[in-house]
C-alpha cells in the first residue's frame, strides 16, 4: 500500500497583525466601526512595541504601534504606511511544520519565542508566500 503523503496541518488563522502610528486612535476606530473591543489594556514589549488584542471569532486582531524607529513594524510604517502587517497561523507541531516546508524548498526561520506573545513561532519568507509575512505559531 502506498505510504500516505504527509500533510501540513494548518489549524486556523490565529491572528492578523496591523501596524499603526496611533494605537489609541486605531483602537477607537475598530470599536466604533465594528464593535471590536480590546481584551485588556495595551502592553509595551522590551522591543519597544505597544500592542493590543481585539478578539474576533476564534482569532484576534493585534494592533501594534512601534515606539522607536527600529524593527520590522517601524520599517513597514516608513516604507508602506499603516495597514495590514502579517498573518499568523496556528499549527500543532511547529518543528514538523518547519521540516515539512524546508523539504519543499520554502525558506522558514528557526523556531523562536515571539516578542509579543512569548509563544514559539517561525516565519515563512515572504518571497515564498507572495508577499504575505506568514508566522506559524504553536500554542500548546
Amino acid at each position, binding site marked *: 500500500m502506498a505510504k500516505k503523503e504527509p500533510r*501540513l496541518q*494548518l489549524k486556523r*488563522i490565529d491572528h*492578523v497583525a496591523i501596524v499603526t502610528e496611533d494605537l489609541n486612535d486605531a483602537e477607537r476606530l475598530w470599536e466604533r*466601526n*465594528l464593535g471590536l473591543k480590546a481584551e485588556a489594556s495595551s502592553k509595551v514589549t522590551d522591543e519597544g512595541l505597544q500592542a493590543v488584542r481585539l478578539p474576533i*471569532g476564534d482569532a484576534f486582531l493585534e494592533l501594534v504601534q512601534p515606539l522607536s524607529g527600529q524593527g520590522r513594524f517601524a520599517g513597514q510604517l516608513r516604507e*508602506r504606511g499603516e495597514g495590514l502587517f502579517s498573518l499568523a497561523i496556528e499549527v500543532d507541531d511547529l518543528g514538523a511544520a518547519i521540516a515539512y516546508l524546508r523539504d519543499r524548498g520554502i525558506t522558514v526561520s528557526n523556531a523562536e519565542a515571539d516578542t509579543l506573545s512569548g509563544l514559539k513561532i517561525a516565519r515563512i519568507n515572504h518571497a515564498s*508566500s507572495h*508577499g504575505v509575512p506568514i508566522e506559524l505559531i504553536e500554542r500548546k
Partner: protein
Amino acid sequence: MIEKIHHVGVAVRNLEEALRFYRDVLGLPVHKQATVEEQGVKAALLTIGQSEIELLEPLGPETAVGRFLERRGEGLHHLCFQTDDIDAELADLKAKGVELVDQQPRLGLAGRICFLHPRASRGVLVELAQPVE
C-alpha cells in the same frame, strides 16, 4: 453583529503560481474559484479553520487590485469580516459617518458584501460579508 474573520484577501500577480504555494505546499483546500468581472479579479478562496484566504489576481492594470499591485506589490490586501446582517451593519456605519466605498451591499464571491474606505480604519481596507446560500 460581526461574527468572525471571513477571509484575508491577498493580491497576487498570478493566481496559478500563488495556488502552487497556498494550495499545493500549505495544503489548503480550494473552496471556490471564479472570475468576477465587475471587481476585475480572478479569485480563489481557500479554507483555513473557520476562515478563508482569498487570492486575487487582477484582470488588468486599471483594476483596483491591479493598481494596488503596481503601488505596493504582492501581499495582504484586505480583511473581510462576516456579519449576520449586512444591511443593519451598513446603516449603523452610515449613521456614525464612517467613510464607505460601497453605499449599498453588492454581490461578491463571499456573498453580499461591502467595503469600508481604508481611511476609516487607519490604512486597513475592510470588507463586510453576509454569506448567501
